């Protein structure tokens, strides 16, 4: 379980988070959603200890995340970002195996783990010897996911993992990801600004606005009993193509 208690974060003059309290339950998928700049990525960075809050604390399974504890806590978390997070000087294999090698795993154990992961993520194993520039965007994200899963972490943190992909590949990966989440039963924290994607993945959806939590609940709850007119505006802003067709016909 991850708990965020009274956390505020400012960058210079901008306040990214205003005294947030949140609990992220174990074994579920929690989705953060909101407009660009509302503080979604900031929450993930705080959890994995890349940045520190000015006030308040973040706890990971009871341990407070500080610069001292972060290094070891990070090995229990897997982190995937939107795009461009793969190291260009390493092959797909090298990227995925980097941390395990550093920790002194045998090459045999690494290979075994990779077999499991390529199957899980539907990544063609002959692609492992390619460098990131030689992979498609979708393949790159599968590699990022394998890298995040390599040490079998308790928690997966995904910051718009599908944001840069074209719709078809994105749909494929959404299905694959959801299957993976279900198979592994891990705690997942996912950031998106696509309401449909949020509904597809999220057991719980947290809608943020300007560094504050506006509403927390399932997609139905957000649609049916919005806590604020903004919630409805935000959801309606992302009409599906079918909606607009209906409107034209009607």
């Amino acid at each position, binding site marked *: 379980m991850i708990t965020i208690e009274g956390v505020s974060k400012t960058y210079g003059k901008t306040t990214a988070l205003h005294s947030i309290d949140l609990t992220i339950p174990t074994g579920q998928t929690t989705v953060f959603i909101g407009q660009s700049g509302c503080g979604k990525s900031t929450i993930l*960075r705080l959890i*994995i200890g*890349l940045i520190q809050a000015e006030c308040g604390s973040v706890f990971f399974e009871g341990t407070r995340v500080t610069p001292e504890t972060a*290094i*070891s*806590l*990070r*090995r229990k*978390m897997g*982190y995937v*970002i*939107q*795009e*461009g*997070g*793969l*190291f*260009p*000087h*390493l*092959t797909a294999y090298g990227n995925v195996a*980097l*941390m395990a090698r*550093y920790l002194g795993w045998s090459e045999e154990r690494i290979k075994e783990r990779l077999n499991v992961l390529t199957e899980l993520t539907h990544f063609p194993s002959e692609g492992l010897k390619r*460098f*990131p*520039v*030689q992979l498609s965007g979708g393949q790159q994200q599968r590699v990022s996911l394998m*890298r995040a899963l390599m040490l079998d972490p308790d928690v997966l943190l995904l910051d718009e993992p599908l944001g840069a992909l074209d719709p078809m590949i994105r749909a494929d990966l959404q299905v694959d990801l959801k299957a993976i989440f279900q198979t592994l039963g891990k705690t997942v924290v996912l950031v998106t600004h696509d309401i449909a994607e949020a509904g597809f993945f999220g057991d719980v959806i947290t809608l943020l606005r300007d560094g504050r939590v506006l509403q927390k609940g399932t997609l139905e709850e957000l649609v049916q009993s919005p806590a604020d007119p903004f919630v409805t505006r935000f959801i309606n802003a992302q009409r599906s193509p079918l909606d607009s067709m209906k409107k034209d016909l009607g």
Partner: protein
Amino acid sequence: MKIYLIIIYLFVCNFNIAHLFLSAVYSSPTAIKIGSKKFTESVILGEIVTQLIKSTGELPVHQRELGGTRVLWNALIKGEIDIYPEYTGTISEEILAGEGAHSDEEIRLALSNHGIKMTKPLGFNNTYAIGMKEEVAEKLKIKKISDLRHHPDLKFGFGNEFMDRGDGWPILRKHYNLPQKNVRGLDHDLAYRGLEKGTIQVIDIYSTDAKINYYDLRLLEDDQTHFPAYNAVILYRSDLEKRAPHVITVLKKLESKITESEMIKMNSRAHLGMIPESQIASDFLSASFSLETEPYEESAIYRLLRHTGEHLFLVVISLSAAILIAIPLGILSVKLPGLGQIILGIVGIIQTIPSLALLVFMIPLLGIGGPPAIAALFLYSLLPIVRNTYTGLHDIRPQLRESAEALGLPPGARLRLVELPMVSRSILAGIKTSAVINVGTATLGALIGAGGYGQLILTGIRLDNLSLILQGAVPAAVLALIAQGCFEALEKFFVPKGLRL
């Protein structure tokens, strides 16, 4: 760290190879070391002294063409050389300027305060003189220095040394009340060329200069006796009296033994006859002392090899040290931005110091020869490497920096496994730039006795020998290309394949 191990290995290997090459130049500490200035007469005298000392069974070393008066005098004071030929006028007007030592006795006394002794004059007076092309002087009817007063438009080109010595241009101008404004300081050997081309009309010249006849020059009469006597003498360290008294005995044999005409003849054999100085010295000893010495002159191939060894020694040591220091400095500059600005500022400023000035600046700190040249080259090589390391690391995309950190790698491992490999190309490019600059700048090392290809270039300029200049310049250019090629080849080893796609 693979890179570091390989660099250290190269460093050690080269040190051994260079050591073999250099044993001839940077010889054992007890050997008697003779120095000479970078003009032919001094080299011939140095060679005569060397061969004479050799005949006593010693194994003296002649460090030729070390530089100008300052360099030789400092080297003598510091004990880097034991003996060198000098002129009384230079001693009183320049070395002891302001000490009011004019007579030989006063000079002797003043020198002994520095721990230096002087032989009696060798017999010839090589005074400074003012010279013009015979035909130009004839046309303008200039015979005496005072005649120059009527020709304010004449262009003067004086050796750099003459521009600021005690009896040099500023005092000469006052003494004769000369009106000329167009006065350039330039390398003395290049002044003759200017005279030939007509870009200058008046130069300073030595009265025993072989080129007087060759270039058909008229020496202007010093009608108001400005120039003091420049009697050739030999300076040596007082401690030789204890260390090697027999050496002083043979030095004294040279007193009153070389006449002006003999010296002019020897100079012109070197310049016009292209006869090696060692041969000229040997011929002189044979004629004047019936002493048969073996003129040692290395073959062209051996000489090229030796200079290659010296040049490589300078480049490899200074560049390796620069790599070992500059990469950590670049890393430090990124990790501690405040300190980084200071580091980048300092290495930037070093780069703006003219190379010759930096070399000369090193002499009081490190003496002459290899060490000061290596120190200067080292300083020059820092900037491109520090800057490229800094820029490379600084410009790593934030997503990559963040991904490495989020994996749970500690800072050292991040640097080693992710950041440095990703910027290896940029670092290597910096090293390549440094290497090329270094090879080129190392040719200046010869000016302070560090040898290398620059020595051939210097000697070539001195003897007006184009082939010799090319023997230095071409290998230096080739070496720069080879260095560049080597580092391009090294990219395959040091730059990960993923970055070369």
